[in-house]
């Protein structure tokens, strides 16, 4: 009886086997585009509510209308970004099935629970954001402040559950494979008993504060260069910037920890980060350059540094790309370029952060040099680039596997046609959405300050 059932299941899984897909690369690109659009919005979901609540708590403590005005104006920005985040996140969950039905169809029972729980975080976020945004004039100040707290908590729990799935894809546990079938599934231990996602979560959480902080600060820094510089603007710049700078300093060490975790569990991925063709004792790091024929050309070598960073020993052996067959290696230059971009920008942001922190702590005021503010304007887009480069590093570095060493991405892809059409359509729609959101943000940015904070035009929606 059991045997019969097994035979039947085998037949089912066999018929869900990969279809012919000429457009695997386009499918990956489409997924990457969807992530790249969604991930910066996630940062605002993680960090913006906490910053808003801090501003609102200042208002509750001091009664100073300036803080209320600031919080209200920020909450409109949050509304627009959250709406864009909701819909781009919905697209991602559609694509789990539309682009990778074999991945979801085979392993949905193992990792799906993470998304199911994430759904509830998403619910809490959406419900309380509705209350928070539309409750400014209607709830008592304390009740209104309290309605924002679940948004900040849900931002954290939401990223926790989603990243637990990503951690599982990189370090799959909690199931057994028997004749190509997934058996003995223990979803809770697969996702949350798996230590491999904690470093990713902390890294991403700090990145959320960096991106949100630098993007907001960059906007007000731009205003300062144009002469918009009162107490309101100084406050609006300093509150996100202080968070971003502290996070940037911590991120240096957290990033280093991430590198060591990857070295321990995914040596091939680490080798791709560094373009290490051959397994070596006392392996060097190369800054810049280009990977070709098993080594990095035109790079600046720093001897033994990779061994030291990865294993805390200058003579440690680091596994190279040659440890696995060529078909099992990720596209080295993409991964390496993304990795160097992330580390390079991260280091520059940390440097800028130290400049700020020294000025703020020692002189107890904001820096005065116009160059500092020009650097902040530049830091805003760079922080987003570093964020996306970081995700490219880990996701392309996972290739050619969708479930590390278990299922290839090429076996996960849909057998349905029309991927190029879908990709083009999505790109066009996202371009329109990006233009629309940019237009809204510009509108909100240019809207003159309304110090009373209680006047609302009839047309106001958020």
């Amino acid at each position, binding site marked *: 009886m059991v045997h019969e059932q097994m035979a*039947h299941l085998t037949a089912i899984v066999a018929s*869900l086997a990969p*279809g012919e897909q000429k457009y695997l690369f386009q499918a990956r690109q489409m997924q990457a585009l969807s992530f790249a659009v969604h991930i910066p919005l996630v940062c605002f979901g993680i960090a913006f509510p906490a910053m808003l609540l801090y501003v609102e708590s200042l208002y509750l403590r*001091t*009664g100073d209308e300036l803080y209320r005005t600031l919080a209200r104006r920020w909450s409109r920005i949050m*509304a*627009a970004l959250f*709406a*864009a985040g909701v819909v781009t996140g*919905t*697209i991602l969950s*559609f694509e*789990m*099935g*539309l682009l990778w*039905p074999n991945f*979801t*169809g085979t*392993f*949905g*029972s193992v990792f*799906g*629970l993470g998304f*199911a729980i*994430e*759904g*509830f975080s998403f619910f809490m976020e*959406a*419900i309380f954001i*509705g*209350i928070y945004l*539309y409750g400014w*004039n*209607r709830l008592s100040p304390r009740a209104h402040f309290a309605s924002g707290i*679940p948004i900040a908590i849900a931002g954290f729990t939401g990223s926790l559950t989603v990243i637990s799935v990503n951690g599982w894809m990189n370090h799959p546990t909690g199931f057994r494979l028997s004749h190509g079938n997934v*058996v*003995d*599934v223990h*979803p809770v231990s697969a996702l949350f008993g798996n230590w491999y996602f904690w470093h990713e979560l*902390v890294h991403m959480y700090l990145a959320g504060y960096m991106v949100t902080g630098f993007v907001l600060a960059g906007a007000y820094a731009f205003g300062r260069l144009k002469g918009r510089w009162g107490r309101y603007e100084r*406050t609006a710049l300093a509150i996100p910037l*202080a*968070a971003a700078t502290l996070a940037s*300093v*911590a991120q240096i*060490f957290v990033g280093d*920890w991430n590198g060591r975790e990857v070295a321990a569990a995914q040596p091939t991925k680490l080798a791709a980060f560094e373009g290490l063709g051959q397994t070596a004792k006392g392996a060097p790091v190369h800054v810049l350059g280009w990977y070709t024929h098993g080594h990095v050309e035109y790079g600046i070598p720093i001897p033994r540094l990779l061994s030291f960073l990865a294993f805390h020993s200058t003579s440690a052996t680091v596994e190279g790309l040659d440890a696995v067959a060529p078909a099992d290696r990720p596209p080295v230059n993409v991964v390496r370029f993304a990795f160097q971009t992330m580390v390079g920008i991260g280091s520059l942001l940390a440097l800028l952060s130290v400049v700020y922190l020294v000025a*703020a*702590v020692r002189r107890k005021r904001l820096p005065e040099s116009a160059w500092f503010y020009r650097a902040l304007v530049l830091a805003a887009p760079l922080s987003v680039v570093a964020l996306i480069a970081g995700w490219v590093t880990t996701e392309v570095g996972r290739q050619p596997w969708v479930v590390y060493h278990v299922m290839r991405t090429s076996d996960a892809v*849909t057998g*349905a046609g029309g991927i190029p059409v879908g990709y083009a359509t999505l790109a066009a729609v996202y371009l329109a959405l990006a233009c*629309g959101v940019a237009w809204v*943000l510009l*509108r909100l940015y240019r809207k003159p300050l309304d110090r009373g904070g*209680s006047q*609302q035009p*009839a*047309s*106001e*929606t958020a």
Partner: protein
Amino acid sequence: MHLYDLPLVLALIGLAFYMVLAGADFGAGFWQLTAGKGKQADEIRDHAHHAMAPVWEANHVWLIFVLTVVWTAYPIAFGSIASTLSIPLFIAGIGIVLRGGAYALRAGTATAREQRGVDSVFAVSSILTPFALGTVIGALASEQVHVGNPGGSLVASWLNPTSITIGVLAVASSAYLAAVFLSGDAAREGRHALADRFRARALAAGLAAGAVAMAGLVVLHFDAERIFRRLTEGVGLPALIVSLTAGIATLLLVWHRRYEPARYTAALAVAATIAGWAVAQNPVFLQGLTVRQAAAGHDVLVAVVVATLAGALLLFPSLALLFRLTLGGELRSGKQGSRESPVRSHQRQRLGARLGARLAVAFLIAGIGFLTIANAAWAHGIGVACFFGFILSGYRVALPDDVVDTGN
């Protein structure tokens, strides 16, 4: 009922909530699209927008819930559906993006003309999405999908009489629900002329939805015989009767301007339709695949059910709060409310800046020690906590005094 049915029942409950709540949102978009021009039309568009704006995001999360439960508990079925019905699902996804885009963009509009533009452009999605999702249900009901990647025709699976009829029915019932809800909202605000305009729409849409539903039964008779039989003479009959009765009751209630009870009967009509479909289709999930065969292992099903019930404990009180505030008119943005000024609370002695700075440095050094130099997992845990301590204790120090003056 068996354990392997439970997650599907939860997903169907989620689907019913989605059809009612997000359906009303799409329906609101439908009335925006068809409002025409002029002052009255602007009023309709505005009302439709304001009534939905605080709740639309929460309403759309129901779909995410349905997707995630199905792919966790019935992965093989989900993979086959997503692959085979990729076209309507993609259209629905794009429609959802556009609908959300309308809410994002409306925040920046300054004039009625801009708002009209935004509403009309994006309201198209309000027809697209329910239609596309309706065709997906139609494809399942007429057993057009079997296991495979893809398992069935990419086009004929959802462009067939049953799918198209259910797609049209989804659009009509969305418009119906929205008109009922919006008349109720307008009446609550004492805007009776506006309520009457939505009342007329509700009656028209209700008759249209009823006619499509009747036509749908005829189509099912020819196209999906098994479901038709089970709906009209078997297990699905009670649900069909409830749905019909609730639909007619809603029309009568709306006719007599009893909008509040009409909300619930309208929702019941939609929920009963879904229930009828589910019991009539049971135990078939896809062509050649029963629910039992599609279900994941025991541990997974238990985990999904437990997680969902635990989530529901958090979700329903929160949803109740949101709807109570919205329906009570407390979250309308147009009107002014009295606003109490915050009482100056007892000023907390803030951490001396000097102490904060020292603490931050201590946390930083400890963090480097535990996270960077030590190599054990437990040490890394402490190290991460130290870095968060560094950020929290350093935060106030990193804010210049002239920027944040808390009154000390």
